[in-house]
């Protein structure tokens, strides 16, 4: 079992929809979670990070962590075609290099 798992998609939604992107993780030691956005042929770009449980909001984006079910979510409100990208969740392990464990990514397509 991979430590961080994501549905690869693609997830196709109409413009203006609320999008829910999800990850599950298996390592109880994971405390800190990040979401990266990766446009085609570009490097991953840090979108949001959150610590432990609860919600964190930044504009149209909300990151949510449910530690009891080992489930993390990214919600995008009023989705735009410019949100079309692959979204990667990640968590650092408890290791000397703070290496990130990434999910495989979910490809999102927002259609005008």
């Amino acid at each position, binding site marked *: 079992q991979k430590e961080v798992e994501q549905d*690869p998609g693609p997830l196709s939604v109409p413009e203006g929809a609320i999008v829910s992107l999800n990850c599950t993780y298996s390592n109880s030691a994971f405390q*800190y979670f*990040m979401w*990266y956005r990766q446009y085609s*042929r*570009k*490097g*991953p*770009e*840090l979108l949001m*990070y959150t610590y432990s449980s609860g919600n964190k909001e930044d504009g149209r984006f909300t990151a949510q962590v449910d530690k009891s079910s080992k489930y993390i979510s990214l919600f995008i409100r009023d989705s735009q075609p410019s949100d079309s990208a692959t979204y*990667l969740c990640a968590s*650092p392990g408890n290791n*000397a*290099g*703070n*290496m*990130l464990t*990434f*999910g*495989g*990514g979910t490809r999102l397509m927002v259609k005008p």
Partner: protein
Amino acid sequence: NAGVTQTPKFRILKIGQSMTLQCTQDMNHNYMYWYRQDPGMGLKLIYYSVGAGITDKGEVPNGYNVSRSTTEDFPLRLELAAPSQTSVYFCASKALSYEQYFGPGTRLTVT
């Protein structure tokens, strides 16, 4: 601030050739990382460094070497290139917090 820069953007190698992928960051970050990303796959860590002079292996180090002589630079060396090394390579860096910042990537094809 340029952030993390990588050169070259693209490269085609023949089997058995060698090359160095360059990575430079101007954020004075101690930690630096090399990842590879295969089509439709997530990121796999090749090597990382926690500071100048200190490097360590990641998940997929075979066929690669690194060095870290300065804080800014973290080159990745491919010796005897193989088709299995066809991939997109990303360099990343971070400070003391967990968030890593990525470069634009190098697309490598080995034929």
